[in-house]
């Protein structure tokens, strides 16, 4: 009813030829808290093409759900004069926040130096929802010039809201694009959103939302329609199975234009337009061949990794950025699995994503920024990081990987206490020491063992053995008299024999025999460490037998001694030849002892 009053006001203003008409109206004054109110602020007049948006009053008691605007031009001839009337309507969708009596204050408009304002509107808000006003079927006609019965165009088949998905069978995570398009062959007014479609089970990415209605002509089944795309969404199913997209509904009025010139008022009829519900069959991702590093990506992706900065100084962290970009459910991709890297502590990543629409597909990137804390100096390698995604185009999994990255870290140990930083010297980096300078002679440093080095060892041992034997001999000489006499015996014997031969040469036979006997006694005494000189022949015989000398030798020895004694005391002349023989015989005998 208000709408009609509003229409009346509009017409009146035209009739009175006012320069500008600025009004505000609501569709209902009695609403429930769950209901929506449509506030229409209209500006009409001549030449208002550049009218600014009206200033809304304080609407703290209301939620602003949205706004739209429409423009219409009418040409009227009154009293033979033609006037062009423009009407710009700003439509705001409001929802009350509380119950009780709420007031929408005056709206203001500054136009051509003049300020216009509307009357405040009071609204009764009740709990729950107030039934919408009944269809205006039985409403009394205001126009007295109502033409006779007129065949109304049926709503059925001429007005529809179509939800059309591009696919009905998709894999989990694959994009489904749904268009909500309004097709009409009727004139519509006061179109407002009644219910948004419900996309439970999907992750929703808005592609397009109509801010104003732009109709284009479209022919369906031979009928010409005005079509307007209201909403376009990209849906990514998050679970397998059959998912339902609940319908979207609009409310509005169908305006049946006045048929006669005198019928000033259009006929309106409220209407609710609803789209059909859609069933989407969501296939689970194939389990066979599912890689371990699958992180949930469905679509087509690239991976890139970078390090900033490319080296770590003083143990500061290096950021490893892994950027996954491409088309698909980019926001649903999980962070890639980073293998542990020895000597590096990997902290939790910072995640950034950005999506855009490219040819109706959702594309964009997701960035994982991992701070890497080097725990030791040197070169660190970040291995290839691999992720897998499912490509619904060829129904298979693909694995992509980053390139290996290398960075050097310095000063990791010096974070706690660095003598260098204490002196104010800053470590910028480390490198190998420089090469050795030029030389005038390049000596070949052989590690072959020379022969003399090898010989030194046995030679030294031989010398040591000699020394040891010498020491032993010395010690024995000092402690063992018998050993000393025995060692001396040969030398003494020679001395005595030479003495004897001297006497023989002098022909002093007596002395010769005495010397020979002395030599024998002396030698035997030395040899066996006995006091031979002081012994009788018998004693000597016994002693020598005791020392283990054979009887034969002993008797020979005794025989020589006897011969010597006989020759000395008997003074019998013994031939020179005998003397010589005796000497030789004695020598032989003694050397054999």
């Amino acid at each position, binding site marked *: 009813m208000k709408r009609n009053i509003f229409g009346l006001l509009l017409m009146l203003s035209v009739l009175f030829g006012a320069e500008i008409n600025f009004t505000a109206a609501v569709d209902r004054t009695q609403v429930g808290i769950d209901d929506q109110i449509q506030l229409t602020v209209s500006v009409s007049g001549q030449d208002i093409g550049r009218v600014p948006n009206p200033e809304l009053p304080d609407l703290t008691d209301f939620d602003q759900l949205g706004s739209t605007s429409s423009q219409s031009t009418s040409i009227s001839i009154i009293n033979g004069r033609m006037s062009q009337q423009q009407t710009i309507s700003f439509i705001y969708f409001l929802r009350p926040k509380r119950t009780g009596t709420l007031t929408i204050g005056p709206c203001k408009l500054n136009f051509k130096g003049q300020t216009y304002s509307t009357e405040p509107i009071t609204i009764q808000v009740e709990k729950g929802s107030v039934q919408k006003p009944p269809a205006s079927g039985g409403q009394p006609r205001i126009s007295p010039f109502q033409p006779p019965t007129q065949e109304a165009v049926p709503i059925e088949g001429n007005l529809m809201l179509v939800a059309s998905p591009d696919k009905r069978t998709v894999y989990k995570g694959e994009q489904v694009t749904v268009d909500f398009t309004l097709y009409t062959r009727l004139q519509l007014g006061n179109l407002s959103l009644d219910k948004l479609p419900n996309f439970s089970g999907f992750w929703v990415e808005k592609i397009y939302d109509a801010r104003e209605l732009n109709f284009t002509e479209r022919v369906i089944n031979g009928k010409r329609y005005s079509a307007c795309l209201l909403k376009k969404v990209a849906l990514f199913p998050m679970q397998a199975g059959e998912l339902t997209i609940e319908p979207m509904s609009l409310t509005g009025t169908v305006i049946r234009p006045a048929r006669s010139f005198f019928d000033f008022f259009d006929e309106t009829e409220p209407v609710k337009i609803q789209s059909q519900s859609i069933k989407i069959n969501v296939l689970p991702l194939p389990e066979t061949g599912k890689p371990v590093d699958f992180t949930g990506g469905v679509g087509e992706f690239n991976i890139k990794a970078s390090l900033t900065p490319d080296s770590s100084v003083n143990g500061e962290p290096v950021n490893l950025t892994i950027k996954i970009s491409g088309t698909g459910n980019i926001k649903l991709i999980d962070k890639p699995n980073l293998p542990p890297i*020895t*000597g590096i502590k990997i902290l939790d990543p910072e995640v950034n994503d950005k999506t855009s629409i490219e040819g109706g597909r959702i594309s964009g990137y997701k960035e994982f920024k991992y701070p890497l804390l080097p725990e*030791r*100096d*040197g*070169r*660190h*390698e970040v291995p290839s990081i691999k992720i897998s995604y499912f490509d619904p185009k060829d129904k298979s999994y693909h694995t992509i990987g980053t390139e290996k990255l290398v960075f*050097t870290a310095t000063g990791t140990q010096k974070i706690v206490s660095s003598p260098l930083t204490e002196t104010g010297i800053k470590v910028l980096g*480390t*490198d*190998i*020491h*420089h*090469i*050795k*300078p*030029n*030389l*005038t*002679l*390049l*000596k*070949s*440093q*052989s*590690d072959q*063992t020379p022969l003399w*080095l090898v010989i*030194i*060892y046995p*030679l*030294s*041992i031989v*010398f*040591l053995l*000699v*020394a*040891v034997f*010498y*020491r032993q001999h010395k010690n024995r000489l000092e402690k063992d008299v018998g050993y000393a006499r025995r060692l001396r015996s040969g030398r003494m014997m020679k001395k005595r024999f030479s003495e004897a031969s001297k006497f023989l040469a002098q022909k002093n036979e007596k002395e010769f025999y005495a010397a020979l006997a002395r030599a024998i006694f002396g030698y035997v005494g030395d040899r066996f460490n006995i006091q031979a000189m002081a012994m009788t022949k018998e004693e000597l015989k016994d002693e020598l037998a005791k020392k283990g000398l054979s009887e034969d030798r002993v008797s020979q020895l005794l025989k020589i001694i006897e011969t010597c004694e006989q020759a000395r005391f008997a003074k019998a002349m013994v031939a020179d030849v005998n003397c010589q023989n005796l000497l030789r015989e004695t020598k032989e005998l003694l050397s054999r002892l």
Partner: protein
Amino acid sequence: MNLIGLILVVINLSPCELYNQANQAYEQEDYAQAIEIYEQVSKTTRNSCLYYNLGNAYFKSGKIGKALLNYHRARFLAPRDRDINANIQFLRNYRIDKNLTIENPIIKIIANLFHLISFREAMFLSAISFLVTIILIGFFLIFVKRIFLYIPIFTGIIFLYSFITWQVWRGERNSARAVIVVPEVTLRSGPGQDYKDILLAHDGLEVKIIESRGEYSLVQFPGGGGWLETQAIEKIF
């Protein structure tokens, strides 16, 4: 310099002149040519400076394993050289595979003690100190003078030290130590491509060859081991 030029140089110049020329190439950041000449000289001349500079040139061309290999060869000839030791330490930190085992400080001190003198020095010192010790002991036995007993105690300690050092170096030279010289190599559980992959080792890792069979070698290093293609490693000595 092309190959013909290089050959001419090899024919005409002494090893020392070649070495200086390679240094010049190194200074001009022509590392590939520097390596070529150094390698040529190293075929005839063993010198710690040469090996050290060759290692530097390899490092500058990104070959960590080859560099470490030559530093080890240089260190064998000149163990007290600070540059060589610093660069070995630098490369051990620089390479990808780090030694995760923490060295026992006492063992480290002892190990350093027996690397103070080179193989050659140890060899000579050992022989001479042995000779002196033995002669003095012999003199003591012969002349029985106290002084001949006190000095060999001292020289004997020198002998023991240098002898052990000598044997340590010998052991190192004969223990088939090698360095991985390819960027990356997979260690497997057996000598062949079909065995299970165990570890992934990178350029510059020092390993010990335990066994060689066909084209594969079993290597061991602190923290693991496995079979790899023999061409992936190069023996230090």
